[in-house]
């Protein structure tokens, strides 16, 4: 499986070239275009329960699409929802992703929702994505992706962590002064251990809050 990622980091697009019989998996809805000679199968991959968990708990699709080439050299373009970066990672083992960050992978990679406990409550919901297996993994962000090597401790603002290695543990913390909590913008993920965390340079939440005041007001005559 060959791949190239074009137009990084602002309008990244993933193009995969398959050999005959080769398969790539993506989140349903990520395919932007493809050559003829590719069979598309829509499945829950791993069973209905896994699909349900993905859909309702982790912001991904219930279904995943499996693309299998009938001929060599067939190409598929995958585009993420938000404008931003796509990163490729040769996965061997396990990686955690923020909700919605999974784009595509080779067949040997499984994607499942993971209950993250109450500590995840302030982050993008109670669940995160857990990808396991070995093969190519592609994940995406809103904005640029920066890779940070953590050795010891590193702080990432809530909602900006795209992916992190299982060798890192994290806990939620507030900025030190208690009054900062009242203003709800200083909830931090404190990663510790040794490993990599990928950080995005913009937050969909922050953008949504920014747009909020532009919403029309409800009229009072109802």
């Amino acid at each position, binding site marked *: 499986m060959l791949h190239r990622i074009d137009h990084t980091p602002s309008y990244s697009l993933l193009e995969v070239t398959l050999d005959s019989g080769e398969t790539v998996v993506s989140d349903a809805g990520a395919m932007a275009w493809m050559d003829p000679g590719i069979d598309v199968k829509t499945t829950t991959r791993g069973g209905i329960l896994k699909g349900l968990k993905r859909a309702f708990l982790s912001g991904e699709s219930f279904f995943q699409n499996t693309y299998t080439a009938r001929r060599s050299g067939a190409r598929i373009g995958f585009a993420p929802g938000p404008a931003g970066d796509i990163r490729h990672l040769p996965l061997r083992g396990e990686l955690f992703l923020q909700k919605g960050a999974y784009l595509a992978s080779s067949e040997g990679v499984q994607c499942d929702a993971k209950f993250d406990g109450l500590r995840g409550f302030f982050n993008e919901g109670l669940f995160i994505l857990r990808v396991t297996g070995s093969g190519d993994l592609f994940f995406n962000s809103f904005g*640029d992706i920066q890779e940070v090597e953590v050795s010891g401790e590193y702080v990432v603002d809530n909602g*900006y962590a795209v992916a992190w290695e299982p060798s890192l543990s994290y806990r939620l913390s507030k900025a030190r002064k208690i009054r900062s909590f009242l203003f709800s913008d200083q909830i931090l993920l404190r990663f510790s251990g040794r490993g990599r965390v990928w950080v995005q340079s913009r937050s969909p939440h922050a953008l949504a809050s920014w747009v909020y005041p532009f919403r029309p*007001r409800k009229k009072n005559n109802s």
Partner: protein
Amino acid sequence: MQIDILSRGAFRSALVRLSDGESFISESGAMYRASSNVDIDVTTRTKGKGSFLRGVKRLLGGESFFLSKYSVTGGAAGEVGLAPTLPGEVHRIELDGASEWITAGGSYLGSGGDVEIDTQFQGVKGFFTGESVFFLVARGRGPLLVSAFGTVREIEVDGELTVDTSHLVAYEGSLHYRVGKIAGSWVQSFLSGEGLAIHFTGRGRVYVQSHAPNEFGRRLGPLLPQRN
């Protein structure tokens, strides 16, 4: 203090490296990553005579109520990453202690610990079109970070320049300015869709952004459910 503008692509941000004893201020909520030895405090003060009232004034300036202050203690160096909300560029302006810079309310991203930040209220004219005309004044010595929605065009003024308020990012304090209408009369100015303008005279630099945040907001807002 070393500042890297992470300048790949359309979603730029700044990574500020602080040595022991140094500090940096930002709009609250702008921090998205930091080393663990950075102490994050919420403040209403900057250098100078800080007060609660200044925090209120800042709210009117279009920024969050409070500023965040980052400092490093304990000997080791630390880093803080700062990002604006909207896509666009981040620029660094170096304050030399002599001249001040004025930023539009929404364009202030951060500044060095020795830079004083104050709010300037530009009168009620802004309410005519619903545009706020509030500025933040930065004076002292050190770096000032501004963010733009889109790209920044730097314009050297020698004489006169008219800028739509919603496209203004920052300007040099050596310039004189007057807030006013764009067209001949208020009605025409309103109909022209250009809203309020700032007329600069004198010599100095002006930063203008390619896109107006409030125009973007006005496109998106009506597509969303009503609020109460």
